[in-house]
């Protein structure tokens, strides 16, 4: 079920920019079009690039926002979310909690 929807109409999560567009819906209540345009602008790419896994792998690697295949030395998990919050200009709940716990809440 999940796989079929993901292939038929899903953005592709971390393979592309699906998680980033989802974050704009979740944090700013943006509709799909607005959310995609916002993310494209922040990443300095075209909206079409957002669902292209080839292009997005390059972009995600350059920006350090997490790759679906985690390569050594690249940001992943919490590290990637620090950068996502910064690049998209949004608050991510667990990132803020982490900063508090690690005493880097500035």
């Amino acid at each position, binding site marked *: 079920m999940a796989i*079929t929807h993901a292939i*038929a109409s*899903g*953005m*592709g999560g*971390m393979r592309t920019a699906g*998680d980033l567009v*989802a974050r704009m819906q*979740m944090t700013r209540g943006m509709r799909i079009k607005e959310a995609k345009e916002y993310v494209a602008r922040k990443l300095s790419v075209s909206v079409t690039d957002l669902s292209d896994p080839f292009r997005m792998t390059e972009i995600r690697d350059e920006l350090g926002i997490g790759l679906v295949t985690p390569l050594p030395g690249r940001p992943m*998990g919490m590290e990637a979310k620090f950068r996502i919050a910064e690049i998209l200009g949004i608050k991510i709940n667990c990132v803020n909690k982490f900063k508090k716990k690690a005493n880097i809440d500035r």
Partner: protein
Amino acid sequence: MPKILTRMGDGFLAEVSEGELRKDLEEGTKDAAERAKVPPLNEDELRHLYDIYRSSAKFTSVDIGDEVVLTYDAGTLKIRRVGIDVGRIHALQIYERLLGADTMELAHVDYSYKAVKPIVGNEQPILEQALLTSTIPLFYGAMPNLGIYSQPDGPVPNASELMPMGKIAEARAAQEEAVELAVKDMVYVGSAMYESGADGINFDTTGAAGDPDFLATLRASKILKAKYPDLCVELGMAGEFILGMHGRLEFEGVRLAGLYPHEQVKLAQSAGVSIFGPVVNTNTSKSCAWNIARAITFIKPCVANATIPVHANMGMGVGGAPVVDNPPTDAISRASKAMVEIGRLDGL
């Protein structure tokens, strides 16, 4: 005239002629339009639906560039249900890295806020660890599930036992008590999970126990949003129509019983919901084409009325997907494409 291979709402393969397919689509949209008093799909939309369901391809999809984001109800449970013995953090990683999920949800096997309350302290460390190792947005989700507040499982008298005895007032009082208790539990668990770092809270299958279920969830959403303005609340429904189990309950002056998706979304918005998930149930004795035409007719005006993102429920037995545990990709991919392209959705 060649036959078209299609499926019934129970998943069985069936053959229809072009005329039968067209008729099914027209009747499906008409059924929804009459019930919810919304416009039926127009000629262009029906034509587009016809093309999607007429295709002989095993798999179909939206056009490049039209993709939407997906949220998942009962997220980690789906891996457990198929008997894969991994921890829930592994399940999240499988979704994130293997299945390309845009978001994911951590869930307890009982999938009810009431059942989570006594073990919330066990759930929080798992969520906190999951957040450290995952990148995609993470929900914590469960059902309001007002049914389990009734005796003999829960504390309040059983409304469905009182009703047939003619004890209408007592049944209503019991449901109102259940609402109070459920609001408490949902706020308690939702707060705990947000405090642990969750990106969002999902109230799934809302309205399963009728209008009291919907009311409790709207109230819990409002309280949580007032408490945590940055919290993302997703509210997913149980069916297209709010069952009037109580009949008189209102939220901000609007009677809940009998509301359809395009009316439900307005209340969800005023309760502060961030993402709304409308549901249309599948009729197993009608074709998938009939069901999807009907589903989109309900969902389209809901999307039009919305100022927040709308993610239609497209799981087993809802949103034109057949009622079958092992879903056929032909039927799901057609429903997926049709719903996104004609329903103009923000996600599924």
